């Protein structure tokens, strides 16, 4: 389910992503702030599982609260939880069911992306966007897997049309049109300037000293001659396109048009860096004649119009950077799809780092809790209670998945536990409403979760539970008192 959030700037966000929701909620309670930080950490380490870590932590705290009411000492509860955690560390690696080996094939990458992106609720067209992203990633995957960078896939959002009109291309899309007259170049040489395309100025303040009227008239002529020379040099180096991260003076633009050189102004330093990466060149700091290492080659660079927005599309020879052009009806929808794609790309990056996968859909949680229950029977009574409570806390994930689908969560939970005890250890919740069965095999449907992400989420959860349970007092600082500020006399002027 999605949530509609209205921020204090009156911006409206529709999302089901936990971290997006939490960011805009003003949370005053300090312990909830700790939990919020957990989600944030999860977000920037792995990009996903933000809701998972939040839910698991609160459920563990809930079960611990139950134990405290029964009269257990905090130290005992924590000891029990730690014992349970150590067991999980041992058994999780054994639950691996799949390892992704081929990152260049569409089908395999789709298996990674599907479970992650389907949680974002992008209506019935989720299939399409997953396939699109899988194709894009496979085309862009570098020969050395470790070089895969999340920044290499850009997303360009253009209002209008519907999601099915989205497409991807290898290259960059810049939401600006080129300055000047030239709008299209094929097989062109490109240089990137990190300074402005204008006459050089001194750092110290400069004054023009003119001795007579002739100098006055010749001054502008001199400037023009200089600029003409510079652009001519650039043209002689066979450059067709200049990309500038700075200002373009009018004189410079005039000569560029005259010499048929395309100019493109970019405002962001990071975009410039990316273009340099794409073309494999270094950018120029000074307006000099470019050396061969500073000239890059593109297949084509042209200005086109998508939904009455002018964009410049750069098609390069190398496959380093790809762009997905997203089309959609509303900005909210586009933002949500972008978040979805972002999660997908992070999932692929996580897979490259660590390609072990366990069954998803609430399956592995049931396995963990059943195993812990068996383990608790070997322990003495106090520890056994605590470990059992810890085991129960993992049921919440399966319960919530089932409830959100509209099933009776207790029934589904019991069904799954029975199936697992009979040995069918890969059954999980079936979200496909058209089928009668509420449970299905995760292996057949290729529903997988990344092992490393899950483990880290559980690590963070235990860490937070330990810290929070050990707190016995919260001391809130109130702003210290002081003399009240003298109120200004409204008749007085503030001039002096």
């Amino acid at each position, binding site marked *: 389910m999605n949530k509609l959030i209205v921020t204090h700037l009156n911006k409206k966000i529709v999302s089901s992503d936990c971290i997006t929701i939490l960011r805009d909620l003003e949370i*005053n309670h*300090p*312990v909830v*702030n*700790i939990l919020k*930080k*957990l989600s944030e*950490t999860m977000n*920037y*380490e792995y990009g996903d599982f933000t809701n998972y870590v939040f839910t698991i932590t609160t459920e563990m705290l809930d079960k611990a609260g139950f134990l405290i009411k029964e009269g257990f*000492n*905090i*130290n*005992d509860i924590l000891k029990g939880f730690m014992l349970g955690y150590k067991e999980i560390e041992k058994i999780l690696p054994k639950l691996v069911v799949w390892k992704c080996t081929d990152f260049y094939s569409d089908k395999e990458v789709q298996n990674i992306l599907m479970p992650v992106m389907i949680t974002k609720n992008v209506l019935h067209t989720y299939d399409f966007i997953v396939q699109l992203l899988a194709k894009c990633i496979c085309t862009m995957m570098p020969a050395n897997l470790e070089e895969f960078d999340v920044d290499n896939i850009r997303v360009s959002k253009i209002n209008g049309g519907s999601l099915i009109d989205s497409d991807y291309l290898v290259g960059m899309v810049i939401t600006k049109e080129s300055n000047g007259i030239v709008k299209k170049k094929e097989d062109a040489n490109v240089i990137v300037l*990190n300074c402005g395309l204008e*006459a*050089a*100025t*001194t*750092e*110290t*303040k*400069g*004054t*023009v*000293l*003119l*001795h007579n009227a002739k*100098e006055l008239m*010749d*001054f502008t002529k*001199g*400037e023009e*001659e*200089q600029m003409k020379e510079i652009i001519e040099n650039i043209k002689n180096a066979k450059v067709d396109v200049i990309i500038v991260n700075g200002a373009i003076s009018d004189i410079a633009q005039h000569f560029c048009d005259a010499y048929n050189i395309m100019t493109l102004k970019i405002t962001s330093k990071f975009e410039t*860096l990316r273009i*340099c990466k794409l073309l494999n060149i*270094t950018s120029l*700091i*000074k307006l000099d004649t470019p050396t061969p290492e500073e000239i890059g080659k593109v297949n084509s660079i042209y200005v086109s119009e998508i939904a009455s927005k002018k964009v410049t599309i750069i098609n390069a020879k190398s496959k380093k950077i790809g762009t997905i052009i997203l089309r959609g009806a509303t900005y909210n929808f586009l933002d949500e799809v972008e978040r979805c794609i972002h999660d997908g790309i992070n999932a692929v990056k996580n897979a490259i780092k660590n390609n072990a996968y366990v069954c998803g859909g609430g399956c592995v949680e049931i396995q963990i809790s059943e195993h812990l229950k068996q383990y608790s029977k070997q322990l003495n009574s106090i520890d056994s209670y605590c470990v059992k409570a810890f085991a129960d806390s993992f049921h919440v994930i399966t319960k919530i998945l089932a409830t959100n689908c509209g099933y009776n969560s207790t029934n589904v939970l019991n069904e799954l536990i029975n199936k697992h005890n009979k040995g069918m250890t890969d059954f999980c919740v079936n979200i496909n409403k058209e089928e009668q069965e509420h449970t299905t095999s995760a292996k057949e449907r290729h529903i997988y979760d990344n092992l490393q992400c899950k483990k880290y989420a559980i*690590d*963070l959860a235990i*860490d937070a539970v*330990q*810290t929070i349970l*050990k*707190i*016995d*007092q*919260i*001391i*809130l*600082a*109130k*702003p*210290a008192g002081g003399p009240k500020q003298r109120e200004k006399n409204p008749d007085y002027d503030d001039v002096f």
Partner: protein
Amino acid sequence: MSVHMLNKKADSLRSTNVLLTNINASKGMYEIIKTNLGPKGSYKMLVSGAGAIKITKDGNVLLNEMMIQHPTASMLSRICSSIDEMLGDGSSSNLIVATSLIYLSEKYILYEGIHPRIITQGFDSAKTILFDLLETMKIPVNIENYFDKEFLFNVCKTCIRTKLPYTLADKLANELVESIRIIYDPTKQLDLHMIEIMDIKRHMSIDTKLVSGMVLDHGCRHPNMPSKLQNCLILVLNVSLEYEKSEVFSSFVYSNAEDRNKLVQSERKFTDDKVKKIIELKKLMVEKKLKETGKEYSFAVFNQKGIDPISLDLLAKENIMALRRIKRRNLERITLCCGGNPCNNVYDLTEEDVGYAGLVYEININDEKYTFIEEVINPKSCTMFIQAPNDYTIKQIKDAIRDGLRSIKNTIEDKCVISGAGSFEIAAYCKLKEEEKKIKGKQKFSFDIYANSMLNIPKILLENSGLDTHQSLFKVIDKYNANPVEPLGVDLDTGEPIVAHVKGRQPCNCQKKKK
């Protein structure tokens, strides 16, 4: 009443009222701090006005951050924090003893009618006896002859275990002792600033480690500079490689565009020359090293002042990694780590000014860059590298590291330790009870009060672990009284009496003294 005659608005309290409020204040402080004592104590969460969270157990931090308004309580807390300033740890236990002394005196002062003066005199005599006891319980340790790692590890472990969970505390203690070993020089005083503490928000706190080298909190600013260098020669500079405005007001005068261009170039010349000098040195050294060892060496420049973009470009073309605006302290630390001298100008550069590191690399976390200098030969400086998932954990670990380092330093300077786990307190209790029989007159009571205050510490340690307080306490006392030679403390996991220094719980001698 007399004060009211001088100033009608003054608030004042007299005699019994004063005693009552002071005693209540002490009781209040006692209740607050007692749950935080020892390794099994609990944490307190402090939330600042801006919403920033701090989770801590350290008595000193708590006392500073809690805005106490009661004047007596405030005075008590300041006295106890002063211990932290001198020694680094022990403020909670100090506060417990101090507050217990006050509120246990309540019974005698209020209900038996004893004058407070007599009780304080008794305290003085008790104190002298305790000092003597302390001297007899010392375990000497001499670091100059032999750097006893095991010993220092135990001391550090005792201190840090009271601040952080067990596994993390043990790991940290190990690393801290190693770091002290690196910077330890028997001839000079131990300078704790030579251990840099750097933190990054990532992974789990168990990944905190000691880097035998340096970690800098920024990276090089040029995209083309190499991000990983092996066999690296390191030059540390304090030279400004950017355009500097003149002190007096100045301006250029030109008549045409060509003149202007010439002026622009001349502005650059000064800085470009400096950069060229550095490049010359690099080429010279790399060639020389190539001839000597046949290995390809690389070059890195660390500048305390700035480097402007054009100079960065020139250096990048030569494949030199350059960092600008590093901290002043880091200048000293890098030269201690890698060798070489920090230079103030580029015209006197020689080969001896250049240091060496086996590996220099940069990592990019989120939007921040960190530079690591590792594999140095014979380091005299190092970095404690903290990794934790969130801010308050990082602060916790930082405080713990600071306390741990101070405790090791104290041990080295004091040259002795005593057993912990409450063993000194129990010995003090038994001794004072004995001496009580020898004292004549009303001072008997003060001995009783002092002894019970001392006993409070092991009592609270046991209470916090959830064990049966009085049973375990009396077990230890009986065992000690039977054989008063070996000091016995309490094992917080089982409640049985143990010989504490064998188990490795040894807080510093000087802390006990200061109380």
